[in-house]
């Protein structure tokens, strides 16, 4: 790209440029595909739409970054393919003196700004969609209280009973009101992709709609002292029927 400015009229016919362009295409696709797989595979099956969106957006960001990363990699690999010089004394100085190329830098700036803008707009849209759950008036409310080193859940919509276990009905939006009794904890349901800090003296909010029946992980994501590593729980997402049974068995009402 940088020899846009050289006096050769047909710079794109140069062999170096052709090789680099080919490498660029191959590497960009490679980075996009591999990056997407490497990212999404460890994250597992999403248990909510929020998490599905997150996995989706990370794949998208990988593809957005892939052309830039691919170009850098292509140029780097092409330079490494040149004949190298080893030894204690420097090689002859380069036979050209390109120290700038306004066209190439302008192109680079415009492209990277556009990619950045795209990522930003897309991120905002998904962000907005996640926030909508927070406004859902039909959502069930659960008060979450963190303390060193346990979680407690108050089911305020179901007859105000307290439980040490988190049971959620499937496909029903739930709104968490999170606080802490001592230090900062962080309420994180891994497979649902939601997280919010539990701060003493404040109530923070997060919301999610579980979409799959199963057992998931709730972990504390903010160092909270001695047994931080053990401050975890299972989250049970069950059918509405099972949920009702569980609620009544704990003295709650439907």
């Amino acid at each position, binding site marked *: 790209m940088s020899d846009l400015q050289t006096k050769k009229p047909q710079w794109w016919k140069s062999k170096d440029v052709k090789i680099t362009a080919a490498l660029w295409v191959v590497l960009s696709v490679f980075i996009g595909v591999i990056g997407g797989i490497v990212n999404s595979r460890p994250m597992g099956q999403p248990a909510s739409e929020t998490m599905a969106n997150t996995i989706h*957006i990370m794949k998208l*960001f990988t593809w957005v970054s892939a052309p830039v990363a691919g170009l850098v990699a292509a140029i780097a690999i092409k330079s490494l393919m040149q004949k*190298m010089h080893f030894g204690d004394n420097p090689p002859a100085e380069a036979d050209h003196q390109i120290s700038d190329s306004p066209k190439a830098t302008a192109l680079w700036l415009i492209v*990277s700004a556009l990619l*950045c803008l795209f990522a930003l707009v897309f991120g905002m849209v998904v962000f907005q969609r996640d926030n909508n759950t927070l406004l859902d008036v039909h959502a069930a409310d659960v008060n979450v209280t963190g303390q060193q080193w346990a979680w407690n859940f108050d089911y305020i919509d179901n007859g105000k009973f307290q439980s040490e276990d988190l049971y959620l009905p499937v496909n029903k939006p739930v709104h968490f009101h999170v606080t802490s009794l001592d230090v900062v904890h962080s309420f994180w349901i891994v497979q649902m992709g939601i*997280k919010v800090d539990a701060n003493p003296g404040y109530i923070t909010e997060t919301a999610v709609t579980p979409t799959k029946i199963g057992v998931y992980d709730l972990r504390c994501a903010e160092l909270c002292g001695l047994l931080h590593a053990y401050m975890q729980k299972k989250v049970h997402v069950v059918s509405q029927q099972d949920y009702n049974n569980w609620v009544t068995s704990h003295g709650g009402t439907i």
Partner: protein
Amino acid sequence: MTTVMNHKSPTASHRPIMERLNVVTALVLGIALAVISYYLASKFLPENTEGSVMKTRHDQIILIAMFGWFIGFMTGIGALVAPVRWLMGKDLSHDENMYLAGKDAGTARYFRYTTDHKVVGIQYLVITMVIFGVGGILAMLIRTNLGHAEGGWLHPQAYNAVVGIHGIIMIVGTIIMITGPFGNFIMPIMIGARDMAFPRLNALSFWLIVAALAPILSSFFLGGITTGWSAYNPLATQSPGGMDGYIMFICIFAISTMVAGANITTTVVRMRAKGMTWTRTPIFIYGTVASVALALPAFPVFFLSQVMSAMDRAAGTTFYDTRGGGSGWLYENLFWLMGHPEVYVILIPAVAALMEMAPVFTRRPLFSFKIAVMGIAGICGLSILVWAHHMYVTGWAPLLNAPFMLTTELISIPTGMLFLVLVGTVWRGRLWMTVPTASIFALLLNFMIGGITGIYLSDVPADAALHGSMFVTAHFHYTLMGAGLTGAIAALIFWFPKMTGRMIDKQLSWISFWLVQIGFNVAFMGMFMVGLAGQPRRVEAYAELFTRGNQITTGAAFVIMTGMLVLLWAVIYSWRNGQKAPMNPWQSKTLEWSVPNPVPLENFETLPIVTSDPYGYGKAQS
């Protein structure tokens, strides 16, 4: 002291006090004052009243004793010599200034308050290596402990303490790793100056770091820093006395950084050689100045946050305690107001150092110097506006998440400019393959991975899934270690001949390079995987499914350790027995290579005049 005196000096038995001060007197006086103030505080401080907040008296005693150490050490090293003189209405004489500069003083000058920037640079280099040594040992403790799912042989509290001290000591090590050794030794010569603008402040900034090390190391014995390096309140208020060590360490270190920042900035602005216009100033100088200038607004905030933390612990205030009207979010804001500029304080000089080396090893001009400067300036400007992206999920201000997401993602544009400059320079260049050259490519790879993972984290929904997980830990290790430390090691190898007068062993540094880079990429790729799968950071035990990823990381960590030990051996061996270096082994065109080895006391006999930019490679043929 084995100082060689010039003929004007009094005989050894009548030497003035300032010539008797060195690191030994500093240690003696520091320890003595610490013990005395500990004793006095224990004796006279009132007992805790019944209803008082926890451990107030204990923290008061520790803080007072540490303050005693600080005053004693700085007095003992001779930091007060000149200020006392000013109080008496005089200044130091020329001979005394020459003594302070370490004229004819041999090795002894490295162990006292020496103002020569080259001595300070070497002192910084050694202290950086000591800090990395301690931090590295702690890192290996963490990794061995994480070799097993059900927690290792460290007690959870000890594990938390190890994590905390590893974090903060490595952060400090990386902050000083380039602007300390190379910003002090190389930078003044590179701009054609005889010394720094404020030589005594230069010595002060170094010895403050030494003074700061005692509190942080003593925290091992006071219960440790069990909060991670970020020391969030109210957990910090709850922590044992080691937290006071953290507070004292940060306060002293912040002063050191501010002093060094003012000094380096002034030197570059005022003392460049005749003819060295801003367009002829090497890019490394821009990187150094950007780094310290960014630290100038950042570290006072850090200082302040820790003073308030100390008051919460020792004076019963409630700045960060919601029960008393304070807020933990105040601490988080203050901390990240420092914390985000700080990562660029680390990163910018590392990238700039590699940009400085790229033209030398490709034998062609730096590509698009102006874009490089714009990139550095753009990162500096944006980096003070992004701090709350560390707080997306804290619940502090959900409405501000979108604007902070905007500023954070914008940073990718100036960062991209730095990439453009590097790839533009290596493009079609004839590569002179040395460890610094290979480091450019290593930086491109590591910084690219660190950068792209940073884009995920800048996105609010993705951050909700990834925040507080090992993914974040791997991300910032990729930027600070994969990019930052790679640049610093390349800088060490590049400037080693000028700083020590000897070439660093080629074979050993190549072995070290490959071990560190391969080990690094394997280790932190494993960490990305477990982070994505949901392992929180700072845990001493984890679920069974993370076992494989953690074992990969632990195994590769030992490879990194081996590589680092090889590098340490290469440095020690070459410093003592290495092949003598010629004046300009890399045939570079910057000014620091135009002075002989060892560099004379005032660098230049006659000050140079600069007539062209330092990257005029390849122009002879055209």
